[in-house]
Structure formats: structure tokens, C-alpha cells
């Protein structure tokens, strides 16, 4: 079964709006990573948050991590049409040493 589960499965917004995606997982982690994938191509790494961190920022991205609830969220502010893609969370489970477990992803569509 999937370690990470993203919610929602699909999100459609207008350019300039914010997009929030959530990820839940089941077991203790070393870190949680978010990736973007355009049209079935390779994954682009967005941000890594460690288990002892609660929030990280990178440009228009903000990631939070709540280890007590085993959940994370990715916020994209002031979205652009170019942000249209699938977004995946991936967990590096404790003891796995870099074996990433992915959820099924959120498909984000940003309309110009």
C-alpha cells in the first residue's frame, strides 16, 4: 500500500490564486520531499523537509510538516499557468536510507 496519500487528487484554479495540496503518511520518516512532474516526464525536486522541521520556504513554495498528525502540505502562492503539473509527496521512511515511497499525486491545473 502507498505510504503517502495526496489530497485532493485533482485541483483546478485560476492564475494568481493559491494552490494547497496535502499529503498524509503512515510511519515515522527521516524526511518528506515534494516533486513536480510535467506530462509524464522526469520528476523535478521542489523541496525537502526533515522530520525535525516544521516549515520551509522556497520562492513561491511553502511546505509544512506535522509529524504528530503524519501530514504535510504544499502551498504554491500566486500560481502561474506554468505550474500546471502533477505534484507528488515522497517519504523517506526511518531506517530505509533513501528509499522513497510516493503517493499517487495531485494533478494541478492552472487556467490562464
Amino acid at each position: 500500500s502507498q505510504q503517502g496519500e495526496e489530497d485532493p487528487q485533482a485541483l483546478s484554479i485560476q492564475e494568481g490564486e493559491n494552490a494547497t495540496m496535502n499529503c498524509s503518511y503512515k510511519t515515522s520518516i527521516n524526511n518528506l520531499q515534494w516533486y513536480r512532474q510535467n506530462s509524464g516526464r522526469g520528476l523535478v525536486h521542489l523541496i525537502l523537509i526533515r522530520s525535525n522541521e516544521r516549515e520551509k520556504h522556497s520562492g513561491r513554495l511553502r511546505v509544512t510538516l506535522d509529524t504528530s498528525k503524519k501530514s504535510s502540505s504544499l502551498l504554491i502562492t500566486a500560481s502561474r499557468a506554468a505550474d500546471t503539473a502533477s505534484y507528488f509527496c515522497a517519504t523517506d521512511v526511518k531506517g530505509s536510507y533513501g528509499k522513497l515511497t510516493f503517493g499517487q499525486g495531485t494533478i494541478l491545473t492552472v487556467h490562464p
Partner: protein
Amino acid sequence: DAGVTQSPTHLIKTRGQQVTLRCSPKSGHDTVSWYQQALGQGPQFIFQYYEEEERQRGNFPDRFSGHQFPNYSSELNVNALLLGDSALYLCASSWGPETQYFGPGTRLLVL
């Protein structure tokens, strides 16, 4: 600085055949991981190589095997191909267990 490269980009095989996919890691990276991504799904971990040894393995049958060379490049071999092996195969490299950088993938179609 070249990122992770994979070859070939696309491949068509028939059931029962064997396939070899190749990956060159990002410069300075010593760890290579392979993932399988079926259409509409998230990537699934196949295995990871470090210092030319398989360090970890996911829930894939022995038909899936790999190799890492002294220059850290890697191959993924799949024997006795099944229709269900049709997928995007992704290679990722990293320095140890840190951030993994993915290549563009090889799309395999088994007929």
C-alpha cells in the same frame, strides 16, 4: 553540469524479451535508485545501488536486476517481459540518502 541522463528515451519490446536501461548519475553522486511509474500512478521503488552493491530492494520480482559500475552509472535489466512491465522507468541519483535528482525516464512499452 549535466543532470541525470537515461537511455534510451523510448523502447518497444514484446512479451518474453529482455531489456536493459541505462542511467548516468549527476556529477558527484554515488547512489543510484530505480523507480517504476505506471500510468496515472506514483513511482514505485525498485532498488538502490551504492558502491556497486544493491543496498535496498522494493517489492519487485527477481526478473528485475541491476548493476552499478565503478563510475557510478547503472543499468536496470528486466527479463521475461510481461505486459504489466509497460511503464516509465525513472533513475534517480543522490549523494548518500539526501535529495534524489531524477532523470527524464525511459518509457517502455511491452506488446
